């Protein structure tokens, strides 16, 4: 079996032109392979670059060097070299991402926020909304909130909308950035269940979990990221 996601010699740094052009390196020679059905937890001290790696894996940060090979449309595609259109296609079909915070879109209801990626993948709007409703219900979001835009929701409610949106399409690769950060115990159990189901259907998962109990229950393996020695 071959990896669903393989990071090879990834490097990522930043140059801050507004701060006199100072530069710093965050990732160097980063390597990671994740098999279908496997969940890898990124570990390491705060500031070491876990979130930077996640953002590179999502295509949100551009890599300076190296490759991010993804199993996409039956072949291998290098996300690090993909143009904007290809990244959108990969995100639509292959690569899901649950961020810590929901980016709220004015006037779009929670149900439609969740249904949107399903409709983008070609599901009929009615079926997509049904699936969205089922997931929001499973995550204990009160039905009266399903039709409302999440702008006024609490942090925990917004995170559950975000989780439903990320888990709804059954992506083959799923990135989870602190998926249980603002959840109560009952909802944490639901998320653990969703992660186990995703693994069982063969999804490859990469996550940052500050909640040690959650991490130990879902992760098959840890991948530690250590801070680079100060290059300057």
């Amino acid at each position, binding site marked *: 079996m071959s990896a669903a996601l393989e990071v090879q010699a990834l490097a990522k740094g*930043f*140059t*801050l*032109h*507004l701060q006199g052009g100072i530069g710093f390196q965050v990732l160097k020679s980063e390597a990671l392979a994740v098999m279908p059905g496997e969940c890898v937890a990124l570990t390491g001290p705060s500031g070491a670059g876990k979130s930077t790696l996640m*953002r590179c894996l999502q*295509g*949100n*940060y*551009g890599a300076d060097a190296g490759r991010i090979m993804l199993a996409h449309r039956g072949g291998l595609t290098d996300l690090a070299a993909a*143009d*904007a*259109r*290809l*990244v*959108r296609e990969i995100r639509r079909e292959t690569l899901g991402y649950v961020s810590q915070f929901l980016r709220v*879109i*004015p*006037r*779009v209801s929670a149900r439609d926020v969740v249904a949107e990626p399903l409709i983008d993948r070609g599901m009929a709007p009615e079926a997509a909304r049904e699936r969205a409703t089922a997931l929001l219900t499973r995550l204990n979001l009160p039905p009266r909130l399903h039709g409302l835009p999440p702008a006024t929701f609490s942090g925990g409610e917004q995170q559950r909308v975000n989780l439903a949106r990320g888990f709804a399409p059954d992506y083959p690769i799923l990135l989870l950035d602190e998926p249980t950060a603002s959840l109560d115990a009952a909802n944490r159990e639901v998320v653990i269940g969703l992660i186990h189901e995703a693994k069982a259907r063969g999804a490859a998962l990469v996550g940052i979990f500050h909640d040690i109990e959650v991490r130990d229950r879902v992760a098959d393996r840890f991948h530690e990221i250590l801070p680079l020695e100060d290059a300057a």
Partner: protein
Amino acid sequence: MSAPLLEAANLQLRFGAVRALDGVDIEIFPGEVVAIVGESGSGKSTLLRVLAGNMDADAGTVLYRDAGGEAHDIHALSEAGRRKLMRSDWGFVHQNARDGLRMGISAGGNVGERLMAAGDRNYAHIRAEAADWMARVEMDPARIDEPPKNFSGGMQQRLQIARCLVTNPRLVFMDEPTGGLDVSVQARLLDLIRGLVSQLGLAVFFVTHDIAAARLLAHRIVVMRHGRIVEEGLADRVLDDPRHAYTQLLVSSVLAA
């Protein structure tokens, strides 16, 4: 993947000593929303006009591929050919609704006129389509016979969008479509545009200096400065991981609400 819908190469344009366009290459694909951002004087509105064939460049080419796959050099087309394209395949939404609407005729007439220009002659059908499009842009179709001056700025802008979209264009140009509107009105308009663009699968070039609008609507962002493209790419990548000094300045200058 499909070929570009519109493709411009090496556009050059000088206004006296100022290089308004300095070697610009840009393309757009079917269904893609591209935001052109930059400060006043960066050349972004000039670029939009040149791409839409409303202004000639000193050098360079703009190719448009029609639904049959045939490529047309926009600036080599006759005036009549360009007008025909504008009516059938393209739409242009101006910053100032007064530039895109005929203020002397009714709301319904404004929308219907585009259909007539595209060849529709059935009055009942034209009126029904106009009413339908008013509803789609969240205007009361009962006001179909009122002139644009009776409507607020935000409603005039929505009417202009209805007029533009009624003929099912493939490519739409928008110049600061939310400029000059109240913030609450802007949000509603942006959301409306976002919904219509994804339902209709439109390709859109829009010029804006509003980074939040670009993030909400655009798939891809092109950053212009001094007539050049300094950075371009996936919208969230350009905004969250800006490389060029000027993009970093633009992104860091946004006030967080």
